[in-house]
């Protein structure tokens, strides 16, 4: 029964997001490439992500999923092509500003030593802003960790750490969320809870989102469209159910 309700809610999420998916490209790559030495990691990928859309990036290990995602917030520098953020070449923005607006949640939480509150306040602190205690409390409440402010991050479980990582990213109030297999390092139960949390947040904030996942079922649950990468090249893109019907 609970599972059915979750499925209904996911479908509602997708319908709501589908309704807002044609307002214009929030993020666009054009012939985006990255070559390191003689290895082609990302090969001439052109794709548009609409405002409010959730795009899943799927493909086998080593196909360039994470490499592609890292180019979208300039964590790595493209060796060819261009990325447009809200229609503008993203190189017009300073990398710290770009990365604040295009938030990223990584596969592992990579929390900084200290308390949960320190971690949540990290992003705004880089811009000289102090996050109020109430704001930290609200963010932690939102990710299901009420009262965790003063906990040392070394005492958190994997699922809790990933929730803190999500809260830390949300503290920057990003317009776009990049998710790099955010549940792959978690056990099944934690993974599903974190996935539900991410879905709820995307729905609430009507966020544009690019999620890398090796899990086709997860891609079907969360994304409007999916793109399949093979050896760094775009092999297919389209509505998730169509693209992943044979996966």
């Amino acid at each position, binding site marked *: 029964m609970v599972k059915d309700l979750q499925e209904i809610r996911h479908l509602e999420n997708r319908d709501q997001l589908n309704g807002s998916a044609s307002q214009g490209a929030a993020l666009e790559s054009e012939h985006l490439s990255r070559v390191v030495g003689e290895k082609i990691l990302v090969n001439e990928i052109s794709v548009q992500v609409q405002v409010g859309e959730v795009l899943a990036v799927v493909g086998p290990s080593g196909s360039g999923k994470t490499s592609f995602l890292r180019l979208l*917030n300039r964590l790595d520098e493209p060796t060819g092509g261009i990325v447009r953020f809200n229609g503008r070449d993203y190189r017009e923005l300073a990398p710290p*500003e770009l*990365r604040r607006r295009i938030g990223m949640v*990584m596969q592992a939480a990579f*929390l900084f030593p200290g308390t949960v509150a320190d971690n949540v306040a990290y992003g705004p602190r*880089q*811009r000289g802003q102090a996050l109020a205690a109430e704001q930290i409390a609200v963010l932690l409440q939102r990710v299901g960790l009420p009262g965790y402010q003063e906990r040392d991050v070394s005492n958190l479980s994997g699922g809790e750490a990933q929730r803190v*990582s999500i809260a830390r*990213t949300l503290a920057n109030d990003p317009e776009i969320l990049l998710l790099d297999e955010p549940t792959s390092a978690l056990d099944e139960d934690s993974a599903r809870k974190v996935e539900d949390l991410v879905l709820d947040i995307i729905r609430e904030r009507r966020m544009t989102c690019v999620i890398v996942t090796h899990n086709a079922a997860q891609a079907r649950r969360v994304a409007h469209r999916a793109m399949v990468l093979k050896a760094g090249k775009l092999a297919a893109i389209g509505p998730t159910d169509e693209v992943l019907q044979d996966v």
Partner: protein
Amino acid sequence: MSELLSIWNHQVILGIVQAAAAVALCLAVVFMCRRFAVHVEREAALSLARGFVQMVAVGVLLAALLHGSLPIAVCILVGMTFAAAVTAARRAPGISRPRLLSFCAIAAGGGVAIAVMLASGTVTSDLIILVPVGSMIIANAMNACAQAMERFRADVLAHVGQIEAGLSLGADPATTVAPYVQSAVYASLLPRLDMLKSLGFVWNQE
């Protein structure tokens, strides 16, 4: 001219005698090793030959140069700094422009120390004093630089995830690596601080 030749001859003879004394000591060690079936004859012979040539060459060079003027001393110290930078840079593969970075670091640290010592009269500008003291300071600066770069590189490699997480949250690169710069500098200074603490009791020339 005759005075210079006299000094030259004196220095060369002194250098050869010192080298011969060193060879004699090394041969004694080789014979001791041989007695306990530790065979280091070949390596010892090669090392001795090389050391002898180097010592004579350096002795001749110093004998010629140590009677030069302050500009010559400065040139020698700059040359030493460059050699130290090349050596220190080998500890930092992957760091961009390591030789330039090492040269600037060693020159800044060693240069300031030498300048202050000169200005305060701790050492005189005589080449025969300045070059040996300067070389010791440069050697220490080289060790500190190499240790700092090695530690920094190791720390960055061990914390790539956290550094990238910081960058992804909008931090500038200098902020994300600041903790590792601090720990690298601290680690490189520790041996020097220990030397300072034991000054007068323990002589520890690195």
